[in-house]
């Protein structure tokens, strides 16, 4: 794919020394690439000259499978497995798209429960992101703290739908199970408990001198580059662009809930560096807690399975619906030809576009910085490769 450049220098004694750049492979098996990603690095000593990502190791033909489903509802377990760290958000995007196509109105209770689940899963996904980011930088302890908190969220999910990671919970037109009675008190308790833990975590990792030195002004992603490359989510907001689909293109009941959009301001380094993306994720978790508390307060009564259609046979048409998943803009483009089988389902994965910018922002970085940058893009190969 690439040829390393060879330069020749002549020493004072007249001999020629040949120096070459080294091509080194990070992955597909590597502790720091968060999945099966192969980064081909062209390095000059420790300095990276070029990064070429190779993906496709986790390609599971999701889109081809969808064309052979007998039912639109059957796509939902596949959609779960795209971004397996934030499965509720994947389902949310898909059912919003399908319901727009079918022109179904879902009851209010369903909307609020979907928002609660999506925000809980956003916190869980960000916990994985910041915990593994700590490990990449070398701090092993924050990861364990994150997973302790994540256990409480997974307990909530298990209580509701029986699964801890891949839920098959949001169905077209409703949900598979209603909330059990102990869910609301436990969710409120989690919100109370976690607010304090965020501060403890920030003291341990985010404002640690060594962590700041490793991540500030590293992997700076300028605003216009981010927009042009299609980056969304914390990558875009970390570069200072104030864009959040929950506020700017509202879906479900996000227009009835009040929260702030967190944007990176370059507090310890340049705007758009790895630290900014990290602090955006930390602050987003605090905002998610606010959303969950408001949604619980506004939760109406109702039947969550009343509006689930018996036969899903949409009229021919196409729809593109986009939602804000923890990694960015997750969109589904569905084409229907009038039968019960989808004609084409395309998942627009945020990590796909977020990863494509990595070549641009890591020129001149060191290998240790490469790890920091790859960790801050927060990719999940399941959705990059689908």
């Amino acid at each position, binding site marked *: 794919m690439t040829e390393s450049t060879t330069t020749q220098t002549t020493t004072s004694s007249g001999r020629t020394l040949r120096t070459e750049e080294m091509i080194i492979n990070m992955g597909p098996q590597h502790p720091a690439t968060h999945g099966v990603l192969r980064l081909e690095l062209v390095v000059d000593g420790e300095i990276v000259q070029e990064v070429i990502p190779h993906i*496709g190791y986790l390609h599971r033909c999701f889109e081809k499978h969808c064309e052979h489903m007998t039912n639109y509802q059957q796509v939902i377990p596949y959609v779960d497995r795209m971004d397996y760290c934030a499965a509720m958000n994947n389902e949310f995007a898909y059912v919003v798209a399908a319901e727009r196509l079918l022109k179904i109105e879902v009851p209010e209770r369903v909307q609020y429960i979907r928002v609660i689940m999506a925000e809980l899963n956003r916190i869980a996904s960000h916990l994985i992101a910041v915990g593994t980011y700590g490990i990449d930088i070398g701090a092993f302890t924050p990861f364990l703290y994150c997973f302790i908190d994540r256990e409480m969220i997974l307990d909530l999910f298990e209580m509701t739908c029986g699964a801890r990671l891949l839920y098959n919970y949001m169905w077209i037109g409703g949900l598979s199970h209603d909330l059990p009675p102990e869910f609301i008190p436990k969710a409120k308790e989690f919100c109370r408990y976690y607010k304090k833990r965020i501060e403890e975590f920030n003291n341990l990792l985010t404002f640690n001198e060594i962590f700041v030195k490793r991540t500030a002004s590293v992997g700076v992603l300028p605003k216009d580059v981010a*927009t042009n490359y*299609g980056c969304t989510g914390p990558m875009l907001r970390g570069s200072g662009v104030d864009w959040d689909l929950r506020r700017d293109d509202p879906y479900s009941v996000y227009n009835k809930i009040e929260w702030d959009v967190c944007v990176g301001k370059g507090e310890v380094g340049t705007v758009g560096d790895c630290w900014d993306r990290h602090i955006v994720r930390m602050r987003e978790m605090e905002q998610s807690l606010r959303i969950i508390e408001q949604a619980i307060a506004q939760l109406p009564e109702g039947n969550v399975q009343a509006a689930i259609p018996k036969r899903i046979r949409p009229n021919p048409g196409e729809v*593109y619906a986009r939602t804000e998943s923890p990694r960015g803009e997750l969109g589904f*483009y569905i084409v229907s030809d009038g039968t019960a089988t989808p004609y084409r389902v395309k998942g627009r994965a945020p990590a796909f576009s977020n990863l494509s910018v990595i070549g641009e922002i890591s020129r001149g970085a060191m290998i240790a910085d490469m790890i920091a940058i790859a960790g801050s893009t927060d990719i999940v190969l399941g959705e990059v490769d689908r």
Partner: protein
Amino acid sequence: MTSQEIFDRLIAQFGAVSDAGIVSKLDAPVDPSITVAPAHLKAIAFFLRDDEELQFEHCSCLSGVDLKGKFAIIYQLASLTKKHKITIRVEVPAENPSLPSVESVWKTTNWHEREAFDMFGIVFTGHPDLRRILMPYDWEGHPLRKDYQVPEFYNGMRVPY
């Protein structure tokens, strides 16, 4: 701006160009879309991105669809500053599917066009590095086509097992 206004603005700029092929499908179910012919796609893309009223600086998604007999390539564009969105549609015949690449307009489409090439075999002329992205580099065939047959063997390994 609404989709009708976006369409009007496009017609105002390119209506006179004979093979621009701008047709509106603004009442299509469910999303309104504007169909454009491949000939002037790049110029139209630059206009969509740079015009002060439109400012579609963010291309969310590029998908290919196999509509037996022709391929449709769908561009989902959004504007972060003006907060509007539109869908642009290009159709190419199935025998030799090729259209100009908009990689120089929106870098998002660099990888998305590679994926469309990989999955459908659509050639994007002017793309700096058009090779497969999800399938292995020496795979034969384009999987998402409707007439795709799964090969029996790949490098000596049985494919369907």
